[in-house]
């Protein structure tokens, strides 16, 4: 017992005492996060340098980016535990005490919708939408562009219904299993059906991604805390660690709602077709339906379609096209409607960037004007580091993700429930920490981890095939063809090559006619790399890629903040009997396997359904056998794996491999990455439970 009895006076600390408190605290928190990201960072660096034998570009920026991630994660996690999670749990406990079920359900639905709008990752889908060509996947195009808001609302409704259903579960102590027995087969059936309808097939990727995207690092801890609070009030027995399961529903329901949206919109969109047919006049009505107006369709076609396909807009009448373009040059109103902006700079950028020579002349008036514009307009996208923009963008995203939710929750607590805020000072600093953390964390990912992931991902195929290192391209000017030499193959055929002296190294360069520009005497030399392990598409190289995918998935998962929060929650609820480290490692192994399988899907071009159906079938069986508790925790941990660290790395790798292998879409890795961790957790759960059963049976003798 301390001597400090008596009144509860504020104890004032001296500066030295404060420093003595702050330093170990900060050190501890930073160390935790260094441990969390160490594996993935060290692994990526080593893999690129040792296994791929390519030095890391922009090493200084990447290193500082990773330092920023560590700092950001430390702030963010502390903010979660100090601010967001206590707030969520308090509301969870107070809601059932102070209000009736309908109020709680309305609150849950609003929260679900709000969470979706706040989640910054939902914006990623829209960025992805800008790469989709309208004629390739009309349904996907219209959903991600014209109806982007409708898509957000649809996903939000899915999440809202999920939170609502989750609360009903807690109130009536329903099992999660029936939801899975119905929900999983429904989503599977929809996906299978979608493979027969080309438009829906493209949408199914987005549908599955929407489920994963909404369960981000802000949503998951908040929803978990809320669930735990509610189930503390409603659970009827003395055992189960309740409060899980909402995350699972929040990743299942949006899949269904997005598919429904697709099915509703399906009759109004044309089937996927080539550019020419799409822009032909027979298809005009349906094509215009994808855009806000006919002018917008013209603008889109002028920017994105080939010159030949564009002519379909005027039924192949070239003069009609040129007079239209000329009108574009003179009529500012038309320009605004078609190109979005009326100024001449926009027109010039379109003409130089996309137009044919004839179109340029028609639009700009004369050949001189075209030449002047070519000199003036820089169509390349500069990619220099823009620090103020970086800070502003990520800061805004962090504020958007956290503040509206916190304000809503505080409003509910203070106005609807008429409760005092518990520890307002702590809550406030928690929210501030979360904001700082989220901002820093996303900056760090953009600067460090994504960059590193992109480098490794794009070079990864060099393990099993020859790839071009385009960023190391060198122009040899004044190339003299007489230095070309001939070498003979074992079969007697010959190849041509020449020697080049690059950075004081004498390199043999295979001669490629296409890279030589006769008029200027320039030769474009692009170094190549690989195959490093065995021959092209050899077993060795592919095994290296699969191994890489496994460790990358494992390492990235250990750094995921939402999984960290889930693990912490499970550990606290079981008073340490189910350790956070055990859960995280189990999930990480599952994600590793999932990503490795996903990579195999891309490399061998296996249809998605073959990758998803077997594990989900096994999952249904394991779910039947597992205890309610493990089913909840296992399925929830799948929802949190697709977080801000894993997703960019996986996408970078998937994109790298699929472009090199020539497969159209890299989607599917993420879907596989969420099936296998559930399997892993349920398997561990079954082993744990059978041990326990043996213990109980031994005792019951």
């Amino acid at each position, binding site marked *: *017992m*301390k*001597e*400090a*009895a*008596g*009144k*509860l*006076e*504020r*104890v004032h*600390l001296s500066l030295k005492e*404060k420093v003595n*408190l*702050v330093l170990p*605290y900060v050190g501890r928190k930073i160390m935790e996060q260094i441990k969390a990201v160490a594996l993935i960072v060290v692994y990526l660096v080593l893999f690129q340098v040792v296994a791929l034998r390519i030095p890391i570009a922009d090493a200084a920026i990447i290193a500082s980016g990773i330092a920023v991630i560590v700092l950001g994660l430390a702030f963010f996690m502390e903010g979660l535990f*100090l601010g967001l999670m206590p707030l969520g749990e*308090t509301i969870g*406990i*107070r809601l059932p*005490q102070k209000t009736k079920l309908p109020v709680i359900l309305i609150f849950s639905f609003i929260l679900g919708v709000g969470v979706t709008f706040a989640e910054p990752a939902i914006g990623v889908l829209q960025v992805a939408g800008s790469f989709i060509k309208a004629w390739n996947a009309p349904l996907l195009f219209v959903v991600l562009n014209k109806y982007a808001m409708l898509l957000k609302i649809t996903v939000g409704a899915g999440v809202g219904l999920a939170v609502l259903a989750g609360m009903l579960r807690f109130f009536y102590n329903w099992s999660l299993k029936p939801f899975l027995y119905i929900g999983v087969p429904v989503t599977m059936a929809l996906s299978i059906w979608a493979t027969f309808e080309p438009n829906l097939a493209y949408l199914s990727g987005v549908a599955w991604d929407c489920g994963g995207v909404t369960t981000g690092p802000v949503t998951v801890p908040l929803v978990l805390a809320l669930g735990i609070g509610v189930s*503390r*009030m*409603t*659970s*009827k*027995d*003395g*055992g189960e*660690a309740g409060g899980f399961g909402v995350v699972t529903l929040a990743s299942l329901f949006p899949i269904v709602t997005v598919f429904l949206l697709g099915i509703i919109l399906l009759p109004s969109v044309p089937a996927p077709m080539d550019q020419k047919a799409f822009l032909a006049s027979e298809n005009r009505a349906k094509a215009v339906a994808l855009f806000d107006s006919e002018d917008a369709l013209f603008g889109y076609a002028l920017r994105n379609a080939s010159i030949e396909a564009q002519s379909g807009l005027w039924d192949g009448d070239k003069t009609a096209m040129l007079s239209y373009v000329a009108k574009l040059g003179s009529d500012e109103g038309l320009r605004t409607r078609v190109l979005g902006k009326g100024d001449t700079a926009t027109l010039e950028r379109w003409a130089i960037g996309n137009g044919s020579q004839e179109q340029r002349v028609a639009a700009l008036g004369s050949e001189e004007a075209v030449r002047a514009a070519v000199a003036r307009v820089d169509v390349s996208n500069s990619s220099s580091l823009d620090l103020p923009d970086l800070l502003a963008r990520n800061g805004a995203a962090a504020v958007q993700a956290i503040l509206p939710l916190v304000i809503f929750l505080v409003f509910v607590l203070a106005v609807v429930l008429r409760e005092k805020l*518990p520890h307002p*000072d*702590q809550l406030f*600093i928690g929210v501030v920490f979360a904001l700082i953390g989220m901002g820093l964390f996303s900056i760090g990912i953009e600067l460090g981890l994504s960059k590193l992931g992109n480098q490794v991902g794009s070079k990864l195929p060099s393990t099993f095939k020859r790839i071009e290192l385009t960023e190391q391209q060198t122009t040899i000017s004044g190339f003299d063809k007489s230095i070309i030499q001939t070498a003979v193959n074992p079969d007697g055929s010959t190849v041509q090559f020449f020697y080049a002296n690059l950075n004081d190294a004498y390199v043999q360069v295979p001669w490629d006619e296409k890279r030589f520009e006769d008029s200027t005497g320039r030769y474009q030399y692009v170094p190549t790399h690989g195959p490093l392990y065995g021959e092209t598409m050899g077993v060795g190289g592919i095994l290296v890629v699969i191994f890489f995918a496994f460790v990358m998935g494992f390492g990235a998962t250990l750094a995921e903040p939402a999984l960290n929060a889930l693990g912490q929650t499970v550990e*606290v*609820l*079981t*008073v*340490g*009997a*189910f350790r956070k480290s055990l859960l995280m490692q189990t999930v990480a192994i599952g994600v590793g396997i999932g990503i490795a399988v996903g990579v195999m899907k891309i490399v061998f071009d296996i249809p998605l359904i073959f990758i998803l159906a077997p594990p989900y079938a096994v999952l249904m069986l394991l779910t039947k056998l597992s205890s309610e508790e493990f089913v909840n925790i296992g399925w929830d941990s799948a929802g949190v794996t697709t977080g801000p660290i894993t997703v960019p790395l996986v996408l970078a790798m998937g994109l790298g491999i699929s472009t090199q292998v020539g497969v159209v879409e890299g989607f599917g890795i993420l879907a596989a990455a969420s099936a296998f961790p559930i399997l892993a957790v349920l398997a561990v759960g079954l082993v744990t439970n059978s041990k*326990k059963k043996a*213990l*109980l049976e*031994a*005792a*019951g*003798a």
Partner: protein
Amino acid sequence: MTINRDFSKIHISLYRERAKETLAALGRIGVTGIHVEAGRSIQLGQASGLARLMSSTQPISEESVSVFTFLVPRELERDAIAWLVGELGLDHPGRGSVWATQVNMLATHAAWVEAKLSIPTSSARLIASDLTGLACIVQKGEANEIARIGLSTGTAIPVITYGIGTGLRNRLGLWRILVPAEKEVATLVMHASEAEAVMNRMIDEGQLDQPGKGFIYVYPVASGVLDTKFHVGAESQAASVEQIVSTLDEIRGSTEWRRKSFAPTQGSAKKRKFLNNLVNFSITCNEGQVEHFTQVAMTAGASGATFRRLRYLSPGEEKSAISPAREVSILTIGPDKVGPIAAALEKEGLHEAESSGEILISPVAKACTFLGK
């Protein structure tokens, strides 16, 4: 509402998987007002493979347990324990423990009604008396190593629960977030003769007499049937040690034969200052309010407390006025402070429906922590 009546507080600790059946059993004899706390029990496990080579200490196996507590009239204590032992099979090693402490219910809320128990007579059971409970409060993550002493000396199977500490921390303003508040509370119930030696070893192991390390105290336990399964894993003998122990207990008709004498450890040889004759002042109330009442208690004279989360269940009652989410705050204080603190709490509205608070007092025989220089 002042009550000032003596009760026996029964504690049942068993694997969480058995929580439902336990609750059902308690419902059958009419127990109401049950508090459940989640915890983990630790037992000695078996090292396998690499771990056996890497480490010299036996690994610890952790399992989730539920700890049930409820009050019964003093005269029904032994009947209740006997019935529960039979009903839940607690005389088999590995099935859990039950024990009773004697408490005084100082005051409670208006909705409190005494449970009407109807305990069927059960066959005579071997119930140990002369037990001692030991509670050790340390920083989160440190309880396993200290509680392990109960296992390695074969005296008790520890149950560890989480708590939140308060005291100096609460007076630092926002600087408090730098001081971890999460504690672990290890509870060990053992034969009274062994408690002193175990306590001394635990003080040595955890340096509990050093500043900021923790707090340990022992308290009388009136009666109980304790689990004897100290380790888990495959058996290689015709009968396990715990089977032999329970058979001998039966033959001897008591657990007295198990008394062991400990060689004094080096650390315990030195003179140590203990605090004697204290009481535990426990405030149980609805979730979210215990902190406020503890603060009131602290201004009235207490110096520190540990909060723990409980779940309140009352099998017979359909709609209970009391929140299922409850918290308890335990303050260890001198007996002279009980009156003023209780009065201050009453004035603050502890016993009103909003908080539905209850005060229990129980003796603490001996305590140890850093006492200043």
